[in-house]
């Protein structure tokens, strides 16, 4: 049983969002990098739990990124996972990235591929679906629960106004979100072990780039809050009705 977990490097959730070079580049100064929370808390931890239940499970991590991604992938290895692959490319294009992962997935013969439901920087929600298409596997998006018995996965996923439970026979691609697992903190043993786990660097395979970022913009600043006295609630209702036209 082989699981491939896709790992992405993102700015910390509290990072200040600013841009440089005439608003064409994300300003990386003073930014603390983390594993994309959806990749770490949900998909990676769930994979680790599956391995804890069944020692025959092996977990490979994959990231598409330049050498700056190595601390992130080491941290992921410290949480768990047997080995990691880094595809040496800094592309932002979902199709290019998915093609890299799909190429490794097709070679590696994975039974299960986990992604986070999106990255918290570009919010694309694209990679999981694309990998599934490029590997001709079923895709379950926005999973909130994942159970595995033999080669049958039982997955609960978010749908409009509720949830759907389905059985799927592996191989399978799943995008994970809250509910699938709980966040863990790496322990010292894991951190030490991660130093010697294999981290293979491969050059990207040929693939088209189908999109490119032209520029960034920050939203206009809020005008400032209009405070209403706590004993004058009807004034708030008037403002929401007449001024904001929100009720």
């Amino acid at each position: 049983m082989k699981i491939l977990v896709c790992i992405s490097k993102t700015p910390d959730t509290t990072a200040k969002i600013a841009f440089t070079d005439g608003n064409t580049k994300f300003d990386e100064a003073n930014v603390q990098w983390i594993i994309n929370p959806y990749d770490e808390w949900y998909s990676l931890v769930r994979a680790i739990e599956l391995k804890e239940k069944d020692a025959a499970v092996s977990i490979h991590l994959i990231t598409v990124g330049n050498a700056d991604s190595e601390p992130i992938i080491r941290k992921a290895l410290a949480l768990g996972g047997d080995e990691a692959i880094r595809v040496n490319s800094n592309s932002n294009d979902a199709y290019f990235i998915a093609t890299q992962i799909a190429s490794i997935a097709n070679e590696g013969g994975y039974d299960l591929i986990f992604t986070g439901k999106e990255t918290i920087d570009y919010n694309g929600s694209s990679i999981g679906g694309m990998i599934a298409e490029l590997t001709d596997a079923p895709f379950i998006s926005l999973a909130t629960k994942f159970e595995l018995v033999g080669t049958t996965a039982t997955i609960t996923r978010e749908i409009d106004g509720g949830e759907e439970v389905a059985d799927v026979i592996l191989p399978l691609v799943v995008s994970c979100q809250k509910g699938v697992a709980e966040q863990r903190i790496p322990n010292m043993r894991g951190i030490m072990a991660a130093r010697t786990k294999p981290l293979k660097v491969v050059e990207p395979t040929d693939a088209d780039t189908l999109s490119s970022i032209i520029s960034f913009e920050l939203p206009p600043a809020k005008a400032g809050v209009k405070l209403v006295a706590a004993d004058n609630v009807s004034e708030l209702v008037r403002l929401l009705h007449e001024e904001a036209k929100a009720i």
Partner: protein
Amino acid sequence: MSVLIFIDQSDGHVKKSSLEAITYGADIAKQLGIAAEGIVLGTVSDDLTALGKYGISKIHQVNNNALDHVDAQLYAKIIAEAVTLSGAKILVFSHNQTGKAVAARVAARLKAGIVSGACALPDTSNGFVVKKTVFSGKAFANISILSDIKVISLNPNSYQTIAGEGIATIADLNITVAPSRIKVTAINKVSGEIPLTEADIVVSGGRGLKGPENWGILLDLAKELGAATACSRPVGDAHWRPHHEHVGQTGVQVAPNLYIAIGISGAIQHLAGVNRSKVIVVINKDAEAPFFKAADYGIVGDAFEVVPQLTAAIKKMKASV
């Protein structure tokens, strides 16, 4: 050459987010002087011809109940085939649950560039550039799609639906549906509740409400407003409320017309889930709560006193109009 819009349905009804996608796709078609058509999968009880009033002339339908559940693999195959058959160059989805499952998959199949989470019409003056939200609503990016076929998924509640005149013709699309590899065993819908991501108004509570037993005042307010209910992460983590109500960076991202935050301090991770809301009201007894900086209206006061008064005042206002 045309724009093809995926019309998402649930239990036979066309979703509100799809009406936005239709209006958006029809406006792109108008901008480029080409036709706008729709595609719908599965059995639908709504009158599809009436969707013509949102600007589409024709709707392709694969009327097969095997498609009543979303299987991204089957959907992608059929939609890609429809794109080829209809000669569409631009494919539009809503960036809702179905869009997140299907749009990127179709894009990969067609080798088409995708912008997911679009929030404005494309700029076609020089290439094809689409604005989207990034960094969980803290910024925007303008993305150029370089491929011949282009896929866009539109953020729900970011484009005004406009109904005009018009009737769409329905064309049965004769496509063989392969057996699904996904066996749906249960669907649990919370009946009577408004889906959080489709709600016009969201009323949300935080730790300031002190415990699940105090949620009554919030539920009363939500009921009066016809609002969906939500909560902050600590509230979800403490199981005061079901986790699907957790709004924030790692929970649900919402963009309603009105977001009312009660007893939520407004940590940056929470704001990341709500900052696309049009109007934000914050009720908090701590005047220093960071949420006030992101709010349009605020009341510094005790939620247990303010919220019931607010519910009563809204009831009164509604009675008078």
